[in-house]
């Protein structure tokens, strides 16, 4: 058996399906593609499949990955990719399959590009107001956690955040803590803008990459 890291995008309509649905969708695709998945040898055999880091509902992913364990197989990388693509919806394209180098547990940061579309206010004006908000000493937003809602100051996590107007939209590029230890959802930035500045907007968010604690790209 061998471990394979499958790289895919979750874009378009696929943004609107939950992590649980994605999991089922992938299992079905693997079954349809007749890929020789390795099953656990226990009393109730199940497939071995792990996603690097789940994506929130509504957010697109440009470089998502899942690890699967295969039986010994002659299947080439190219064939694996093309078979999976034939079995998946168009909005979940697979673009690579590699041997895993890092463990998903090493993931510490994720980069995002957010495009905000405001109503009743031009992008330049909104950008300068958001920049002003980012200067504040602290930015408190309510965050849902396992132990209920807590007030979180996101200011310390926004050091790698850039904001600029872009063809009538507001573009925010940010790198946020991600992974099992500390996770900051980019939607919290949206919440902050909405609460502090009373701005109403539509946010198109995509996750572009994952990194380890040394800011090395997750491979």
């Amino acid at each position, binding site marked *: 058996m061998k471990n394979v890291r499958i790289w895919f995008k979750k874009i*378009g*309509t*696929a943004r*609107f*399906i*939950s992590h*649980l*649905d994605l999991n*089922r*969708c992938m*299992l*079905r*695709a*693997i*079954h*349809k*593609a007749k890929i020789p998945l390795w099953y656990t040898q226990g009393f109730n055999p199940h497939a071995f499949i792990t996603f690097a880091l789940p994506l929130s*509902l*509504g957010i697109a992913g440009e470089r998502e990955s899942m690890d699967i364990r295969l039986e010994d197989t002659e299947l080439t990388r190219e064939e694996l990719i093309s078979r999976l693509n034939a*079995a*998946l*919806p*168009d*909005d979940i394209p697979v673009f690579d399959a590699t041997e895993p180098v890092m463990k998903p547990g090493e993931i510490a940061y994720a980069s995002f590009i957010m495009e905000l579309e405001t109503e009743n206010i031009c992008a330049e004006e909104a950008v300068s107001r958001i920049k002003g908000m980012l200067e504040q000493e602290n930015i408190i937003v309510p965050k849902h956690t396992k132990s209920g809602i807590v007030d979180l100051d996101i200011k310390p996590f926004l050091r790698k955040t850039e904001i600029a107007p872009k063809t009538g939209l507001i573009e925010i590029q940010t790198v946020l803590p991600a992974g099992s230890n500390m996770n900051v959802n980019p939607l919290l930035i949206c919440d902050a803008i909405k609460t502090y500045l009373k701005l109403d907007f*539509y*946010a198109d968010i995509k996750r572009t990459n994952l990194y380890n604690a040394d800011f090395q790209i997750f491979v």
Partner: protein
Amino acid sequence: MITKKIEKMLANVQKPGRYVGGELNSIVKNPDQVDVRFAFCFPDVYEVGMSHLGMKILYSQLNTLPYVWCERVFAPWMDMEEQMRKNNVPLYALESGDSIAGFDFIAFTLQYELSFTNVLNMLDLAGIPLKASDRHGLSPLVVAGGPCTCNSEPLADFFDLFFIGEGEEMDCEVIELYRRYKKENRSKEEFLIAAAQIPGVYVPSLYDVTYNDNGTIKAILPKCGAPEKIRKRVMIDMDKSYFPDKFVVPYIGIVHDRAVAEVLRGCIRGCRFCQAGFLYRPFREKSVAVIDKQCHDLCDNTGYDEISLSSLSTSDYSRINELLNQLLTWTKEEKTGVSLPSLRVDNFSTELMSKIKSVRRSGLTFAPEAGTQRLRDVINKNVTEEELLKTVKTAFKGGWTTIKLYFMIGLPTETMDDVAGIAELGQKVVDAFYENPDKPKGKSVKVTVSASSFVPKPFTPFQWEPQDTIETLHRKQRHLVSSVRTRKVEPNYHDADVSFLEAVFARGDRRLCNVLLEAHKIGCKMDGWQDCFSLAKWLEAFRKCGIDPAFYANRRRSFDEVLPWDHIDCGVKKSFLIEECKRAYANQTTPNCREQCSSCGAACFKGGICVEKRPNLV
């Protein structure tokens, strides 16, 4: 593709995956290269509609026609509806994201009466005038098929035409005719008069209904050459009947999320309360080889690892063991499970059990329908207590510990003793578990007895029967609960208010169109969802229209009364239904179609079991 405007709304709704399309095997065509845009509308939420086999069949089949693009439309849940109305987004089709108001056909499938308000709400959301008489152009044509069209009178004002019976051929014939009339710039009236000549097509506006002073119907009169009787369409050769080799595979979990094979149509049984048992006659089976191929194709093209062998009564399939053996030759290797949704008490065998169990294991459900032998004879449910106990013992030996039993209360001639009999039967099943010497160690048994309320339906021997009043049903429900004496039997029952409304609309006439419109105006929708249903609102609608719902639900009709659906012909003769009703009152059973032909009339279709049993007939 859904528009940016729709995407923006999705941030504010639950389960946005319902509203985006883009699923594997969904069909996208170029709108400029088709002549007919067809919106297949299921008047309930995505998860329910996507589970419906009929929609999968017709969606695939219509899309095999190069000049037709058939798309799916479902009822949005309240939160999405609110967003759509707030943002002026009309109801759109999932494949293209286009508003359906510009389509050629708005086609609904009518599966249950409680979805009728959703039909109106969806038309309203699409910005289409609700009443057929307010739509003057040839398109959009608002049409419907499905079992409720056997009495579509409560919807007659809203639809241009109904498809009676099985749609595989008829739908295509109507689309073909429409395509020609559209090219020739003909009027809607001309089209409808011509469509009414296609067998199985019912154009309600071509029939005048007159009433007697006592409120019953005097006559149903066709005009403009429309046929006096509309005979349902039937696909006689099931092996040659179209069946899709792929399903749209939903992103999100749906109610029945698996490959579905249709093994047969119709039912040999003739239970007297069951509309489907008469409506879908004659009984027609597919061959083992065809079913096996259809199952394999579906699994290959969807990735599903579970197949459901669907029909009204799958264990009545004459070659069930042969079929399961054939399926097991590849399903095991491909890690695919086989399930049988409908099992009968009297032919559940150890062999059958072992074949389902070898792949997947779930609870077992049987439907004795009535608690005493006398009442089971009345309804012609030819199942004995001995058979039930033998069956559950087989199941207990096989390791099952959860049994669900379905019953009905409010059946004709029912007494309180019959109701108590339900609890007693549950108790006997529990006793059977403890009598089993090799019962699983340390495990208890759970028997759920579930009682729904009887709703008399058209085209059954009980179509003349009054439904028990809500008060009587409540009394019987309480009696059932108090008759249970152990915690191992768990009684539950359906909401009688809901059954009452079903009874009104199942046997309603055209005067209910106004009630439906009124109910829609005061906000009735999603009536099939317990949280949404409000009988108080409905009663207000009836009051406003000056209509007494009890006239439809609780009144005994005489055999010579003109029934609202008398111009619809499903093959089974009215004289046969009358005879069956009389036999019910005499506690007499009728043999099933395989044992002996009872000459119900379905032989007029010249196929299926009618011919197999009586080859000299044709």
